[in-house]
């Protein structure tokens, strides 16, 4: 382990007393608390950190921030391995293990860098051109090759062991960015008592103040920063959120943010999430996200050692790292000179300053002071080196060429405002000719932009904007702003700029988009081939489509296209952005909702009892329902289900039906309402009776069914299917509130209040007798089929008893308050023990109903009418109801529409499959011969063969006919006979026990 050869002896915002050991590609290094992975690598002289996407070119560290296109690394190992982490924003921690990605077999010796030699084949559009023919080669040859050659790291491939959270916040003023503008804004708003949230993606607040040597109010900027942070921390309504990126702006003042709670730790501390996804609701927001520096396009501009000039200042001033021994500055404006000055101040050597602008005596004097050779009106033609920068070729104003050895080239070409959020709602930025950049134009409601993000690049402007907008936002949020404080003075600065988009004439590739390996030649090719509009340019060359979203490349691409087509930049197009500003882990968006918590699960009040009985559960809508109850020794579900079905038909079975939707409907117009929402009639239903009801959608198709009971003259209890409970409630509320608000009607869901069990089979009444209090007469005469009445159980516990049957057997449904649901099941088991009472699940329930030809979810599939299902008689002709007119459309009355019938295999041993399509015997299996499909099948232990329900053209008129049930997916092709859908007890004798 070596010392840190590029670390300055002093300075920087690092804790030199706190050394951190870390590794990169298996080699151990040391850095300090306060380092990023990038600054620590640079301090150790590690400059080659990755290989490029397409050509596998050696790449280093370009920037010091979120815009980094090159230094993408994998962090950690095992299940926590995370690819594509930008080393420039990774906070160093002890034990951090990072590795380079997209190289094979090693970073230094990458065989695939030969891609660079065959690069003519890999130019823009190469996917479309090169690999088109023959088509079969694509899957087998081209794609696997390209996948190996081009990549972006490896996902962990194992379940993420960490957890993530969502959180919601509300504030008067959201300040995005904690540089000088954001801090001023937060302070101005916070002092007025506003609820302020201040977010910054960095782990240390201060923005560019951390990277620059500036003065505010006659003191070092760091003193102002410390005082401001201390005051903000003292304000109770100001919440400061470091490590939090505001990544998106949404409608009505809603902002998305991700807080990296534990990314800076080896693993999250106990009970802490890895990341937290925030939804922030802000009355007003101030975007103070600063600006991103722009590179220059020239040959070899991607070599490790070529860096943005502002990034160099960050490493020197913030991290105490001088990223090179021998520096050259290539600048198009005043800002770059600050880098030369700071390198010199830190004791570094600046060999040359190449300024694209003409000679200027003041600049000459400054260059002399720094000790650098000045190339005024010059340009860097080319950067050279193997795996890192060794020399630059400079062309001076006269055209003469000079070669200078160096290992650091700082490039300065002005800054682009970080205005991304202003365009998340389609806002187009506007080109500013004086500033040579796009600036925010039309702003989303509630958002203001301060400082560099608005193109106001000086420190004085940032402070002034922040203070002013902070006060304005306070006032707009309805609070009294404190009077303005005097504007703070700063040391003078100038920002003269004459941007250089590219330097032609150097030998070698000149990169526009580093991350996607898009060169200036690719943009020229796009121009030649007619892909000139910016959206075409982007898609043809993939410029700006990498994970960095073109933060360092979009403008240069536009500028080169403008030059190629003889237009200006604004004529060529604008850059717009969509969320997220930087990549966001899916985990942070999902929060708690993954795995078994993906969505809420509803459990019946009898769930624990079912578990004890050994139930296998199945998802039914949001519910977990008992599917079947295997007994020891039963290894096949069909054996279990057959036993359960036989028990119901021969003695008595018990099934939880708590999951059905239950809606309490009361009011003088309750019966009238049911008349309108159900297709059948309700007014004549006596109190104490239940009736089967069919509900249509307004377009005439069946929506739901269930039994509804009249508990009182003006009181009904409706049941819905388990799956449709929520939908039906919403529909009924619509019918009442929107269609017929004049009806006197009161509805509320009571689904959760009642536990309900079906007791079915010849011994159902006797079983029930053991549970229902003795004063209630359950005889057939006193409690006939379809009776529905209040009873009591357990000596006075209120209960409801319904004599309804889905199985065709003598059956009841007993409902008790949910707290007693568990006891009800135990009581029924006890009462039915003498009859061998058998719990049954949804599978047996399905078999029983298919044996009786009752329709359920498979038939109520949104494509069937009452007539299709043989329920045409349930459509009253005496009253209006939802769906009446549309159900009468000619096409829906067509005799040829598939209608419900039963099916049985021609050879009894054969298995039927739901989903099989019906085709006439002897006809070929093609769509033209399709006659319908099987909706439900079951093995009937009663008949000892498979049975099915299905929809077939002509329906009941074809009973006795044979057709093919064709199921190519499961290799099924069975001859079936069309029969009545009622397979068991067609006379209905069993209902009466």
């Amino acid at each position, binding site marked *: 382990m070596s010392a840190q050869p590029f670390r300055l002896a002093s300075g920087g915002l690092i804790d030199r007393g706190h050394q951190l050991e870390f590794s990169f590609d298996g080699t151990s290094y040391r850095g300090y608390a306060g380092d990023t992975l990038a600054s620590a690598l640079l301090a150790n002289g590690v400059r080659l950190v990755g290989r490029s996407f397409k050509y596998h070119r050696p790449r280093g560290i370009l920037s010091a921030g979120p815009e980094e296109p090159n230094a993408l690394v994998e962090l950690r190992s095992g299940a926590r391995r995370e690819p594509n982490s930008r080393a420039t924003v990774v906070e160093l921690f002890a034990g951090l293990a990072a590795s380079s990605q997209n190289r094979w077999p090693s970073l230094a010796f990458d065989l695939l860098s030969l891609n660079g030699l065959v690069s003519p084949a890999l130019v823009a559009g190469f996917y479309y051109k090169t690999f088109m023919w023959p088509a079969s080669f694509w899957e087998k040859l081209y794609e696997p090759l390209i996948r190996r050659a081009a990549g972006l790291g490896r996902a962990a491939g194992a379940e993420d062991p960490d957890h993530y959270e969502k959180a919601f916040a509300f504030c008067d003023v959201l300040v995005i960015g904690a540089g000088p503008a954001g801090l001023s804004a937060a302070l101005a708003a916070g002092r007025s008592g506003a609820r302020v949230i201040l977010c910054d993606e960095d782990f240390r607040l201060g923005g560019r103040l951390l990277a620059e040597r500036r003065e505010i109010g006659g003191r070092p900027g760091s003193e102002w920063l410390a005082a401001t942070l201390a005051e903000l921390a003292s304000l109770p309504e100001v919440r400061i959120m470091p490590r939090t990126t505001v990544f998106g702006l949404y409608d009505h003042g809603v902002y998305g943010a991700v807080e990296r709670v534990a990314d800076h730790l080896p693993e999250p501390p106990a009970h802490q999430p890895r990341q937290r996804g925030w939804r922030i609701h802000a009355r007003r927001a101030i975007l103070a996200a600063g600006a991103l520096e722009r590179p220059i396009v020239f040959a070899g501009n991607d070599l490790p050692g070529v860096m943005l000039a502002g990034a160099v200042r960050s490493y020197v001033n913030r991290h105490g790292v001088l990223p090179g021994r021998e520096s050259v500055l290539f600048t198009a404006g005043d800002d770059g000179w600050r880098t030369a000055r700071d390198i010199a101040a830190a004791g570094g050597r600046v060999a040359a300053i190449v300024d694209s602008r003409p000679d200027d005596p003041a600049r000459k004097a400054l260059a002399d002071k720094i000790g650098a050779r000045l190339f005024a009106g010059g340009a860097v033609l080319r950067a050279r080196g193997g795996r890192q920068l060794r020399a630059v070729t400079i062309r001076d104003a006269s055209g003469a060429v000079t070669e200078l050895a160096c290992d650091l080239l700082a490039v300065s070409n002005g800054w682009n405002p970080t205005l991304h959020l202003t365009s998340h709602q389609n806002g187009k930025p506007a080109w500013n000719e004086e500033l040579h950049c796009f600036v925010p134009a039309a702003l989303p409601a509630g958002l203001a932009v301060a400082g560099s993000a608005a193109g106001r690049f000086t420190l004085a402007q940032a402070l002034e904007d922040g203070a002013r907008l902070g006060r304005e936002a306070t006032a707009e949020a309805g609070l009294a702003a404190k009077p303005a404080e005097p504007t703070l003075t700063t040391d003078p600065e100038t920002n003269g700029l004459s941007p250089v988009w590219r330097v032609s004439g150097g030998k070698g590739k000149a990169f526009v988009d580093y991350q996607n390996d898009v060169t200036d030649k690719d943009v020229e090719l796009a121009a030649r081939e007619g892909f000139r509009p910016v959206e075409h340019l982007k898609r043809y060359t993939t410029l700006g489509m990498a994970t960095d979203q073109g933060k360092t490349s979009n403008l240069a691409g536009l500028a080169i296209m403008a030059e190629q087509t003889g237009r200006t930049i604004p004529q060529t197009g604008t850059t717009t952005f969509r969320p997220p500003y930087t990549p966001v882990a899916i985990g942070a968006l999902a929060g*708690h909702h993954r795995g078994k918590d993906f969505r809420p699960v509803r459990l019946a009040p009898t*769930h624990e009892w079912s578990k004890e009985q050994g139930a296998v559960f199945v998802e039914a809508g949001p519910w977990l329902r008992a599917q079947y109850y295997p007994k020891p020794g039963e290894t096949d579900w069909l054996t279990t289900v057959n036993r359960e079905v036989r028990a119901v038909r021969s003695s008595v079975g018990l099934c939880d039906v708590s999951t059905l939707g239950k809606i309490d409907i009361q009011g003088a117009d309750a019966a009238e309402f049911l008349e309108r929402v159900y297709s059948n009639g309700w007014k004549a239903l006596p109190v104490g009776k239940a009736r089967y009801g069919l509900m249509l959608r307004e377009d005439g198709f069946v929506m739901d069914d269930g039994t509804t009971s009249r508990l009182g003259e003006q009181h009904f209890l409706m049941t819905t299917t388990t799956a449709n409970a929520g939908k039906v409630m919403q529909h009924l509320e619509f019918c009442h509130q929107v269609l017929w608000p004049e009806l006197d009607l009161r509805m509320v869901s009571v689904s959760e209040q009642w536990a309900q069990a079906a007791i079915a089979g010849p011994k159902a009444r006797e079983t029930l007798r053991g549970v229902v209090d003795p004063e209630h007469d359950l005889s057939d005469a006193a409690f006939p089929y379809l009776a529905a009445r209040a009873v009591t159980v357990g000596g006075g516990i209120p209960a409801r008893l319904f004599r309804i049957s889905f199985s065709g057997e003598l059956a009841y449904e007993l409902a008790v308050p949910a707290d007693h649901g568990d006891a009800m099941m135990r009581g029924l088991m006890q009462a039915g023990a003498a009859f061998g009472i058998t719990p049954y699940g949804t599978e047996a329930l399905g078999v029983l109903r298919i044996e009786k030809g009752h329709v359920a979810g498979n038939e109520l599939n949104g494509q069937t009418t009452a007539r299709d299902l043989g329920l045409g008689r349930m459509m009253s002709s005496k009253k209006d109801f939802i769906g009446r007119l549309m159900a009468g459309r000619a096409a829906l009355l067509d005799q040829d529409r598939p209608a419900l019938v039963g099916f049985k295999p021609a050879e009894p041993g054969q298995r039927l499959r739901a989903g099989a399509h019906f085709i006439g015997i002897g006809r070929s299996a093609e769509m033209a011969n399709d006659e319908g499909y099987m909706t439900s099948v079951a093995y009937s232990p009663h008949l000892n063969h498979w049975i099915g329900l299905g929809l077939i053209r002509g329906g009941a008129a074809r009973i006795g006919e044979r057709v093919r049930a064709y199921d190519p997916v499961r290799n099924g092709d069975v001859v079936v006979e069309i029969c009545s859908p009622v397979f068991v007890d067609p006379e209905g004798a069993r209902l009466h026990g």
Partner: protein
Amino acid sequence: MAETATSPTAIAWVPRGAWSGSTRAGSFGAEGVSGIIATLLGGFGLATLIAGTGGASSLSQAVERRLGIVLPATPRIVRGQTHDAIWSGPEQWLLRAASRDGWSALLGELAAHAAVSEQSDARAALRLSGSQVRKVLAKGVMLDLHPAAFAVGDAALTSIAHVGVQLWRLPDGPDGPVFEILVARSMAGSFWSWFSASAAEFGCTVTAG
């Protein structure tokens, strides 16, 4: 067929509360701290009251006469000696009784003035207090619960982690802010999964109320 079977009295009708199977008294999360105190509530009476068209004032008078509380017209909870009324939608309230003594008789009386639906077993109820209670709620509640925005007595119907809830704020107690939450009984387990994950970092003590 003769009605000869087990005697009803032989069945033990042991009630099972809404939180059974989801959680129990104890503590979880960060050790040595108790930023959250969760009290599982049970034994209360709960019913939906819906006034008929134009019937709100008759209902309100009946409730006031009988229980001494005025039905709130906005999303609030009005608390009385033994009964609370919580706004649950336009012309709709939840009536909560501290105990179920006389409960069905009371509902019978009120049925003359409103549609009354028994809901005593339909909700799992929880009281949350402690210094960190707003931080936990911020992980699920999409409402501004700042003391200035959500005053004592304010109530809301909303959702937490895709589970429908009704919640309200009670006067601050010795442990800090106090909220009560009603959750659909069937989703008590899913709610608790969210709650326990969210409260763990603050340390949580669970007691049965």
